């Protein structure tokens, strides 16, 4: 697990050193689907659904659980 984290963070950090996308080049990056293609309620329900039906949870930066559907 630790090795995977180090590898992924390293790859992204190395990429960061090479990339400088300027503000006027961000037209595609600012599209809604490139920022977030799901609304807050849709994501919350999906997390709630998977948290109630899978032993795995997390990876969203948001708290899961909070209900008696365990």
């Amino acid at each position: 697990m630790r090795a995977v984290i180090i590898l992924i963070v390293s790859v992204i950090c190395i990429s960061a050193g090479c990339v400088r996308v300027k503000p006027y080049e961000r037209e595609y990056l600012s599209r809604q689907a490139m920022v977030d293609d799901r609304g807050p309620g849709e994501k919350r329900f999906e997390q709630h659904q998977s948290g109630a039906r899978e032993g795995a949870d997390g990876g969203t930066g948001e708290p899961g659980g909070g209900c008696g559907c365990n």
Partner: protein
Amino acid sequence: MQRRHHQASYPARTGLFFLLSISASAHAGGEVIVRGAYYKEKATRVVQPMTDVRLEIGPDTEIAGHFLIDSITSASAAAGAAGVEFTETRLEGGLSVSHRIDTYQVGLFARYSNEPDYQSIFAGVRSTSELARKNTTLGMALGFGIDQLSNAGAQNNGMGQTVPIEGELTTALASLSLTQVLSSRMVANATYDLMYQDGFLENPYRMVPVGAVPRAEIVPDSRLRHALFVSVRGFLPATQTTVVTGYRLYVDDWDVTGHTPGIRVVQALKSDLDLHLRYRYHRQTGAHFFKATYDNVEPFVTNDVKLSPFDSHTIGIKVDTALANLGVSGHMASARADVLLQYVVQNNRYGNAVVGHLGLAIPFGK
């Protein structure tokens, strides 16, 4: 079917009033989203109407809140009294505020959930920092929650012989994220969540066959959970297609390991009309103490499906459009409506499930 009527608690009424108030009195920009979600599988049905409000109360400050009603009808012993179909209502409200200071954003968030046999409160702080001229964004979140639970539902269902059970569960969450622009058409994200749970982690209703005798579920009193999610988003200008690929690796100290890759494709069909296609795969190992049945009493006994080895497939389709495409004019023309349908193949005792959403997002102000 036995139905329990549950009146909205004071915090829930207050939360709803707050959301309605800020949406009605807003002078700045914002958005109100109303959504209805439906989930149905063999023994469980969930209907969840919800409202999300986002309000900019200044050039650098934003408030967001949500309120939802979660109506669960189940005949599952895992969710209530064995053999008795029942309906339970959960109310949840959440509030967050964030403030931008130059390239930093800091915020607070809180969530409260209430149902007859389960109350939960969770709160925390969140921050992001933009680096390298907004090509890199670092984020962190810290949160802490307390849940209080009981088996009051079984007693309320007329099973007076049930021994009352009460418990408390504390949860701590630490999250780190890194978002990196890779090119003018591609951005990557990695999020690592570390969650520690301590306290009553059993389901107070779940009974496990041990020999010929059903016994109450027993699991360890703590659980340390790691989840790493990585994703890459890319846009193809030639076809106006956005592709989102993601993968989550999950491990915990109960020996549950989960692999969850997924892909979402968003195809722009015309201006403000998008077609979304999705696929998600989940595969997990079981907890080291999981067994469907036990011959003898062991330190831990559970037959919880979520702690068993299984896999699942989710396919989904969604259409998202501005109301202008439906002939609506005026202010509401910029509102968006979406319809989402999903089918979940669960290779376990839960069986397959269908999911449906209807959503409407209405911008205001500005």
